[in-house]
């Protein structure tokens, strides 16, 4: 069905052989290792059941659902403005980015558009939440591979971004700032200058991580050639975001769709990597963080004046219809399929979250790897439990 790399094919054959061996009585005895639900490598409560032969994984099955909060059901009993406070908590490291596609879908159904300034500020906050999210990934990557220093740098520098988000929106983790038709408020005084200096700091942070982690030979030997996802497999599983781009697919929803955001106002680079291994995924994320700081700076340069809120009725009733809007969130494509019946609240909201698809490839990917590589692969796929379970 798919083209496998040599390494992947070897690993597959090895795992087949291991399977066969396990079936022979009295030869070797396999071991079932439960990684999680409480485990340092699963940031959240993901459980991975691994069947081991020695240190080699013969068979692995992720078991999600320890954090299912039923948001799709809950949205059906909320009004449209109330939903943002729910979906905020899906990917809790980049919360603002979760609100945007839902609000855009509601705006599409209501046939209104936010004023240009609001679109700009939305895009800036969107990119800031991407930086906050991915910078933590870069630090966490070190911890998963045994280097403890990068994570402290990540927490230190992420704090600047969170402070920015807090001073603009009032919430560090759950801004709940986006409104149908615009934004709650304009930016505070001095925020633009502050953001510029923070973006410079973040670029320094990216350089530090590049030197400390990506340039490290041990890091490279641990990640290169590990967990290779070929392009067609990635597409079949619906992987998105940096995971897809690391497999060489040049697809970025910021660039590739017409959407009421300000990404088309700036020129930016979509980074891809041909290898599809863990290193490629991490590398693409590092470059994206850098690119995001540049996008923020360019957007600040071209910030238009004007109101941040369009004319919307006080009580928001969304006309009957269906709309699908997805954006390129820090973790990948996040979209909402909103069905409205002309009521105060949505009739049905299907939340398409990135990690759900990204992690569904794990059983395929983990066959035949070693236990340490399980951690590398999980870390490089970068999931957030709230984003899997919703």
């Amino acid at each position, binding site marked *: 069905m798919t083209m496998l790399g040599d390494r992947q094919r070897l690993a597959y054959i090895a795992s087949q052989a291991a399977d066969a061996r396990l079936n022979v009585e009295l030869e070797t005895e396999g071991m079932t290792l439960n990684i999680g639900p409480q485990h340092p490598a699963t940031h959240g409560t993901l459980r991975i059941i691994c069947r081991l032969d020695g240190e080699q994984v013969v068979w692995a099955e992720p078991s999600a659902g320890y954090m299912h909060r039923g948001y799709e059901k809950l949205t059906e009993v909320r009004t449209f403005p109330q939903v943002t406070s729910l979906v905020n908590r899906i990917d809790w490291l980049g919360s603002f980015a979760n609100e945007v596609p839902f609000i855009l879908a509601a705006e599409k159904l209501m046939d209104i558009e936010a004023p240009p300034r609001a679109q700009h500020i939305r895009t800036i906050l969107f990119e800031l939440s991407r930086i906050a999210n991915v910078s933590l990934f870069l630090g966490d990557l*070190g911890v998963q591979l045994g*280097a*403890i220093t990068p994570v*402290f740098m990540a927490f*230190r520098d992420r704090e600047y971004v969170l402070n920015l988000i807090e001073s603009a929106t009032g919430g560090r983790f759950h801004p709940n700032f986006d409104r149908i038709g615009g934004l709650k408020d304009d930016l505070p005084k001095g925020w633009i200058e502050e953001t510029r200096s923070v973006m410079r700091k973040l670029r320094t942070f990216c350089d530090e991580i590049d030197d400390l982690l990506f340039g490290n030979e*041990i890091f490279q030997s641990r990640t290169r050639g590990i967990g290779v996802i070929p392009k067609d497999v990635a597409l079949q599983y619906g992987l998105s975001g940096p995971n897809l781009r690391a497999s060489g697919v040049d697809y970025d929803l910021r660039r590739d769709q017409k959407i009421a955001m300000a990404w088309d106002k700036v020129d930016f680079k979509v980074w891809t990597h041909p290898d599809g291994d863990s290193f490629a995924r991490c590398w693409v994320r590092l470059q994206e963080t850098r690119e995001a700081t540049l996008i923020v700076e360019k957007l600040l340069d071209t910030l238009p004046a004007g109101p941040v809120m369009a004319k919307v009725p006080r009580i928001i009733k969304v006309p009957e219809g269906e709309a699908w809007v997805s954006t390129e969130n820090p973790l990948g494509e996040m979209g909402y399929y909103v069905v409205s019946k002309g009521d105060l609240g949505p009739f049905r909201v299907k939340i398409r979250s990135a990690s759900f698809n990204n992690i569904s490839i794990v059983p395929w990917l983990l066959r035949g790897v*070693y236990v*340490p590589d*399980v951690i590398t692969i999980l870390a490089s796929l970068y999931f957030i439990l709230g984003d899997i379970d919703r």
Partner: protein
Amino acid sequence: MMFAVHFPYWAQSLLRVLGGLVAVLLPAGTIVYLFLFKMMSFMQSRLGPMEAGPYGSMQLFAEVGKWLQKEDIMPEKADHSIFKIAPLIVLASTFLLVAVVPFGPDAFFTNFETGVFYALAVSSVSVLGILIAGWSSANKYSLLGGLRAAGQLIAYELPMVLAVVGVVIQAGTMNMQQIVVAQNAGEIFGWSGLGNPYILTQFIGFAVFMIAVQAELTQAPFDMPVAESELVSGYMTEYSGFRFLIFFIAEFATAGVFALIASVLFLGGWGIPFSWFGWNNIDQIDNWMNIVGPLIMFTKMMGLVFLIMWIRFSYPRFREDQLQRFAWKVLIPVSLGNIMLTAVLKVVF
């Protein structure tokens, strides 16, 4: 001639036990506070413990107090007696190691001809402790950690021994005291201002030895037996309270003792170049060196431990197979080559 004043045998033994405790626990405490608490924090742009005592200096006592108060939990399915013994075996190997380290011309616990041989032999006792800790915990993570530790420590024992062989060839003795003397009394091409510390001639051996030490201590990048992101805590997963404390002390005390051995073998040990004071052999050395010697040793030890910790805090960890490959395909051939080179040069000069 151990002490200038004559002590009865029981008093000598008591002094040795106390001295051993000091030589093991004092460096361990210092290493934990200075390096693990403070240096690591500064490297990671944070302050580290600041509340307990001035500048957090009493933090160690707080930690020990905390561990001692904790409940001694044991898995139901664990092999209880073995489970209890394991940390003690690990700590015992540290005490056995420190016994042959000389701290001054007369300040040593014991001085025998095959000191190096003995040190390398007893350093592998800790493997037993780790292995039985992993096995008796009745925990899959512990088991994996214990097996990894056994494979790793055995693999790195070999380059360590081979690295030391170069020193032994050059010094012509396996007595640690005489290795110190040979370095400090030696000369480089007729110039004796520095003595002849073997780090200069045996730098390959030194590098291999320090890498092997890093692996023996299971410090990053060789920390896959504990590998906290994969195996939770490896062989220590099920230990709590004072049993974990013993593992913890043993880890850092062993770091100190290996640094001591490395400084004896490669950095001239307790000595200062004899030419500075016109000494020619060990009998001419003044008695004050018995006080200054341990301080010099301590300084060198801290330098080496700094190196170990610096690498520990900066590097990610190897994978198990990469680690084995590194030992067998790189370190062992390199150290064998080093032995040959040393032997040839020894004959030539």
